[in-house]
Each structure stands twice: as C-alpha cells, then as structure tokens.
C-alpha cells in the first residue's frame, strides 16, 4: 500500500472537517442537525464560480499565480462567495428556521432543513444545469516529496488555507467575547440568556461562520474534484459522521473527526476500491454510536 493515501486523506479530511465545523456549531448552538449544510457548500462553490466568471468577463484572461492553477480572481471570488454563502444561511434562518425554532419543536426544524436542502439543490440544478464544471481544466504536475508521496502546489496551498481557517475559528471561539457567548449558549441556553448574552447576535455569527467555511470547503472540492449540484449533498454523511465522531459542539473535534474520516476513506479507496468510499463514514458513524456516542471530545447531554 502506497503512502499516497496520507495526502489524499488530509485533503478529503480538510473538506469534511471545514464542513463539519458548521454542522457541529449549528447542532450545539441552535440545537438541530442542518441537512441543508451540504448545499451551502454547493452554493458557495457556484457563487465563487460565478464571481470568477464575472471577473474574467471584466478583466479578460488573467494568468494564474506561478505554480498554482488559479490566480487572484479566485481569491477575490472566494471572499465574495463566503459572504454570499454566509448571507444565504442567515436569510434561510430568518425566513424558515428561526420561526420554526420559536415553536419549540427541534425535529420540525430538521424536517424543514431537509425540505430546504432539496429546494436549494434543485434550484442550483435549474440555474446551472446538472453537468459538472471546473474552476480550471489545467492539469497540474504532482511533485514527489519522498516515501512515494506526490503532491501538487494547489493541494499544498489548500492544506495551508485549511490550517489557517481552523486556527482562526478556534481563536474566535476560545479568545473572543462572541466565542465565549457561543460556548455558553451551547452549554446551557437558559443560563446564558439569564446572564444577558445577546442570543440573536450569537445565532448570526454561527450562521455566518458555518456558511463561510462551507463555501471554502465547496471551493476546495471544486478545485480538486469538480463542481456539481449534488457535491454538497454527497458530503453530508461524512460531515455528520465527523461531527459526531469528534463530539458534538467541539470545533477541534469536528476537524479531527474530519481528518480521521478523510484518512479512512482514502485508505479504503486503496484497499477495497473507490466505489465503496461513501460506506466508510457510515461504518464509522455506526461504530461511534454503539461504542462512544458522545464522541472523542464530547460532553454528556444535560
């Protein structure tokens, strides 16, 4: 077995982990599993693609930055895409989830997210068609880095971006006042309200952070694989499995869970074939539920 699966696993794990952060935050702070989270990824990727297209139309063809397959238009577009996806999550909450949450039945909100997921995905299919698209069709040469492992410049850049983002979210949650409010709300909502935490603000930050990270994950999938309306929906099971494996509510847990699942998937591709990839996260999920349902870093529900 070649060690190439380490790189593949790290990359898959980054995408899953970035998505799982959003899942775990919504679950612990808003108290529901958001089935539309995967579709935020797809929306982020398509929004970024549209902005790249718009920049291309305005400034003509722009050469990519030296070894990478993309140039500054993509970097600008990701920032715009993150904003759009964050706003999309925020407005979906305003028109749908917040109203249903006010009625007090958690599972109805999950059901609505399921409906919203279907609608969001099909809307993408309606606007952009179901055929896969790409940010760039250029083929990158993978450099050997020893131990039989090869890696492309794009992949290195994306791993760095992931590391920076994860560190940023971790600092946001542990070092800022908003982050502490988020933790308080997830641990004891009633008490958090009594001590005067601005719940509406925390909810807004949760959606924006979750949406923005989902967008980055979607763009990563777009750069490394392809963009299609179902891309996020297919990530849903790995993301949930990662969030549960890491322990619901824990951001480092979600990232670590994502990396473990990414590694396991990449390993399984080598051992039993790519067609069974999606089963890996299910098997891990079932094992965690039977053996340690609070996950690696979870705290028991109160």
């Amino acid at each position, binding site marked *: 077995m070649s060690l190439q699966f380490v790189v593949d696993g790290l990359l898959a794990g980054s995408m899953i982990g970035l998505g799982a952060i959003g899942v775990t935050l919504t679950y612990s702070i808003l108290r529901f*599993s958001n089935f539309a989270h995967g579709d935020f990824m797809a929306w982020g990727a398509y929004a970024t693609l549209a902005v790249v297209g718009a920049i291309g139309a305005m400034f003509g063809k722009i050469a990519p930055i030296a070894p990478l397959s993309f140039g500054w238009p993509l970097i600008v577009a990701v920032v715009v895409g993150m904003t759009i996806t964050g706003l999309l999550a925020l407005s979906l909450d305003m028109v749908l989830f917040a109203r249903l949450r006010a*009625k007090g039945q958690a599972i109805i909100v999950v059901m*609505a997210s399921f*409906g919203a997921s279907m609608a969001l995905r*099909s809307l993408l299919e309606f606007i952009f068609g179901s055929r896969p698209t790409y940010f760039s069709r250029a083929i990158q040469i993978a450099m050997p880095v020893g131990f039989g492992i090869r890696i492309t410049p794009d992949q290195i850049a994306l791993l760095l971006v992931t590391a920076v983002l994860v560190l940023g979210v971790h600092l946001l949650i542990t070092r800022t006042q908003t982050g502490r409010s988020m933790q308080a709300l997830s641990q004891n909502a009633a008490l958090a309200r009594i001590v005067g935490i601005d719940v509406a603000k925390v909810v807004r930050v949760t959606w924006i952070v979750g949406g923005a990270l989902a967008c980055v994950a979607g763009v990563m999938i777009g750069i490394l694989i392809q963009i299609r309306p179902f891309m996020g929906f297919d990530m849903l099971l790995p993301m949930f499995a990662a969030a549960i494996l890491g322990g619901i509510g824990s951001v480092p847990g979600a990232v670590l869970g994502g990396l473990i699942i990414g590694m396991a998937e990449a390993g399984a591709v080598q051992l039993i074939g790519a067609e069974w990839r999606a089963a890996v996260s299910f098997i891990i*999920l079932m094992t965690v*539920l039977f053996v340690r349902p609070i996950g690696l870093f979870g705290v028991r529900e109160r």
Partner: protein
Amino acid sequence: MMDLLGYGAFFLTTALIFSLVTLGLNLQWGLTGLFNVGLAGFIAIGAYTSALLTTPDDAARLGGFDLPILAGWLGAMLAGGIAAAITGIATLRLRSDYLAITTFGVAVVVQLVALNAQKLTGGPFGIGFIPRPFGGLAETPLLFNLSNLAVVSVVTLIVYLALEHLSRSPWGRVLKALREDERAAISLGKSARFYRVQAFAVGGGIMALAGALQAHFTGFIAPDNYLPILTFQVWVMLIVGGSGSNKGAVVGSILVWAIWAGSGSLTSVLFSPEQQARAASLQIVAIGVMLCVILLVRPNGLFGDRPRRPRFGKRAKVATGESGTAS
C-alpha cells in the same frame, strides 16, 4: 375511455403503494415521533429482498430462489424490520437527530450496495423478470391494471386497519404516551427505547413491503428508483395529509402524487425535450418550498390532530409557544 380507466387504475396503484410507505412513516413519526429520513433505503431493501427471493435462478448473480410471491413479500418485511431494528438500537437512546442522521446513512449505503454489489443486486442494470401477480393478464392492460389495483388496495386496506387497531391498542397508547411525555411514561414502568425500537421496526417492515409490491408491480428494479427524492416525496405526503392520522397518510399520498404526476405531465407538454431536465428540477424546488410553507403555516396538515408539544421538555412552552424567542 378504456385508456383513461387503465391510466386511472395505474395511477391509483402507484399512489396506494406510496400511501403504504406513508402509513409506515406515520407509525414511526406520527405516532411515535421517530424521524426517519432514509425511507428510500428501507423501500429498496424490501424491493431487492423480494426480487432475490422470487426471481428465477440467474447465473450472473447470487440467488434467484424462485419462491412464491407471498414468500418474497414476507421476506421483504422481515428484512426491512431487521434493518430498522438495528438502526433503532444504535440510536434511540440518544437525541432524536441521531436517528435522522443514521437513517440518512442507511439510505446512502443501501443505494451504494444496490449500485456496486453486482453479484447480489445486478448493479446499475438492476434486476429484471420479477414475477408479477396476474402476469398472465399482461396482454390486456386494462384487466392487468385493475387486478393489480385490487391486490394493492387489499394490502393497503389490511395495513391500514391493522395500524388503526394498533394505535388504539395498549401498545399504541404506550407509543403516544412516550411521544407526549416521555418522563411520565417511563415512570409508569415502560421502557422507552424498547417500545421505540419495536415501532421503528414495524414501520420499516411496512415500507419494505411497499417496496416489494412496487417491484412486483413493475417487474423491474434498478438503483435509480431509490434516490433521496423518494424519501422527500413521502415526507411531503405525510405532512400534507397530517402526521398522526392514518387517513391523512392515505389521502395525502394520493393528493401529492396527483400534484406530482400532474405537474410532471404538464412540464412535458410545456417544455421542449432539452429543457425538461431543468423543468423537473424546478418541480422539485416547488415541492420543497411547499413542504417548508406547510410546516410554517399549517404544521398539522389536512387531517393531523396530533397535539403539538415539544418533546424535549427543556423549554416547555405549551400553547403559548408562538411568542417564544429564537434560541
């Protein structure tokens, strides 16, 4: 005229098979409050199990046991029930979202097995030559459709009456008690998890039976029949009909299937062939928005009379819940 009658019979047969799934879902969600988003998986388990048991021997794949159709249906119910029981045992002591995530996973994995385990399921080519009840009548479509309708109606009626009886039986009352006030029910000595697993397994068995009926009705199954959209359709049917009511489940299924089939044929008339894929996705958007709007405006659907109370008693704002703030 005869064509119309034949189509009517065909339409009703499909709608009633859907209503069978919806009845199973109503037992799980409406009566017991268990959230299952892997319906397509359980339907597929039933369809494939029954197909394997009843098709003639096939050298290309495992099985083809050539058993009678009835044996296939029983096997399907058993397989669906067991799959649901395992899912339930893993998740039902945890928060209810875990069940949603796990059932979603079940559907993904079943789809994967259907697509890739060629030796068992025929892979992407599916399984053909599934024996059809009254297959001898296939020469005269009208008679064939009507006899199929009769079979499906009888099965649906039996399941309907059984469920009506169950929901009024002591067993059903325990389920409702668990749904409404878990702590009170447990303090009366009822094991919440045990009863929930039972309800989930019976519901899963009914869904699998519906899958088997469908498979024998069309004579051919393939992985594409069991995409997530199927789960979604059935959910809309239950919510429109009103969860908690078996009557609502049946009426909702027929109504939503009529809307779905009607809008489907409308788009095929209005749009050119190359635009039909896009029109179809718009159709799904419309149904998705419809589900969300019903949940917002009329969560009890047409017939649902289930008292809406939060299951997680932490924020017990009954009756005045409307004024609650976002949390």
